[in-house]
């Protein structure tokens, strides 16, 4: 299908109030999420929606100047609403509320366990992996080795397109089957030469471990930032990764 301007773009330029009216559901949905996550109290919800609307009305001339129409207006609008909500939180100075009286939630020892769905975590995890873009093939290899999943030809091809047949056969021989009885100290010395060959450099097992650890920590941090109140650790990451590899998810 051809690239075509977002129809809402023209409306936004001619009649921005109509767009604001059209996107009220979007504003309410975003504010509702922030209320669920504890950024605002339920009693503040209507006030926050009102504040967002007023701020958008004030910003419309600026938005009309800056918006190029490259992204869908609804997504761009959502980004603006997000920024306004984050700014409201900063300027009002109210911390995340720990006790919500009229929300369904567990309160234990004064701390609140915010709920988030597993599906939410899965979706956000996949979105994070997409953002890692160029490093994703290497990261997938590392995560598969870490959690002892068999490597496939496709994994190797995506990570190291120029991999020769002999190297590919050796990698599959070592890691294409069940290698669950191998420990990390056995795996790293075996795989590091192949990473070096693929990247044209010389690094040791320590460098690979540090790189892998930094990416895992980044993923965990992004998950927790995107889903306030959540707590992710290595074990939950492994569960998300296993689900990501699930054959039931149709992928490209």
């Amino acid at each position, binding site marked *: 299908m051809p690239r075509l301007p977002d129809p809402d773009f023209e409306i936004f330029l001619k009649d921005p109030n109509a767009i604001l009216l059209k996107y009220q559901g979007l504003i309410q949905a*975003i504010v509702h999420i922030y209320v669920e996550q504890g950024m605002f109290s339920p009693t503040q919800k209507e006030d926050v929606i009102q504040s967002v609307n007023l701020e958008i009305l004030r910003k419309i001339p600026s938005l009309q100047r800056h918006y190029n129409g490259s992204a869908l207006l609804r997504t761009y609008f959502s980004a603006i609403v997000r*920024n306004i909500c984050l700014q409201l939180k900063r300027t009002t100075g109210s911390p995340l509320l720990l006790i919500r009286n009229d929300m369904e939630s567990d309160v234990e020892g004064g701390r609140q366990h915010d709920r988030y769905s597993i599906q939410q975590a899965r979706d956000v995890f996949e979105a994070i992996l997409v953002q890692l873009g160029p490093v994703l093939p290497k990261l997938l290899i590392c995560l598969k080795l870490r959690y002892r999943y068999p490597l496939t030809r496709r994994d190797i091809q995506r990570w190291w397109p120029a991999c020769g047949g002999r190297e590919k056969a050796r990698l599959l021989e070592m890691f294409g089957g069940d290698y669950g009885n191998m420990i990390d100290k056995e795996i790293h010395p075996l795989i590091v030469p192949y990473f070096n060959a693929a990247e044209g450099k010389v690094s040791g097992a320590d460098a690979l471990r540090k790189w892998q650890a930094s990416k895992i920590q980044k993923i965990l941090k992004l998950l927790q930032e995107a889903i306030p109140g959540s707590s992710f650790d290595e074990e939950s990451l492994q569960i998300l990764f296993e689900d990501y590899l699930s054959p039931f998810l149709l992928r490209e």
Partner: protein
Amino acid sequence: MNETPDVTDDGGHLNDEGVALFVDALKLGTADQLPEFIRTHVAECDACQHNVTGLFALLRKEDYSGVERHPYFRLRKRKLRTAGPWLWRAAAAIAALVLIPALVYYLSVRPGSEDLRRTGLTTAPGDSSAPAPPAGEGPQTELAANFTPHPEYEALVTAGTRSTALKGATPVNGAVLGGSGIRFDWRREGSERLTLVIINAVGRDIYSARIVTLPHTTGRDLEPGLYYWKVVDEQEAVHFGKFTVRDGPHFPRSTNPAQK
């Protein structure tokens, strides 16, 4: 709108429109169409990842399936997974509940059914006898998988190994054996430590032993099936071979002279 979009700020980070464009890509499955400089930057920028992930999390439940036109991306046919992974899991579970029993029934060995006995067996080159499959205990689907050649290991067996390979290695390729106490033997110069590994037809290691003395006899029984075996030194495999276990552990020992 085909030109490179203006989606970054003075610092090179994604502006609001850039973040929105990336989230559009995530929602529409068009991340591969993002400009290279955006993908490269976001892959390395914590701040932009934070913004993209944060906005995506807010819009996770927003339905973009009705988007038919985009100002920057060429939209492909809607991917099936937008129907929700739960739907596909449910469909797969139902298919499994229906198909697997049907397959088991279809492949089950019935008395006197000679046709079924040829399922999944291979005949090694030079082996004039096509071994009949064992009378089944357990699902025939599992037996069929046990006898199906593994493409990569077949290639390794065919390709051979280093010139300093084992001499006179037994079992010879294609040997048909009983499943109890399989004997391995070879001649080799050098004193490096070797490990014998037996791999089943689906590529799983099922036996591993350091070789101390030769001949080496496996201490475990093998179920009927096609097996590969390799000998590895401290760096790489030095030999690949394959054999077939015809019947269960109580099958009479092979008449192959190499096994006597």
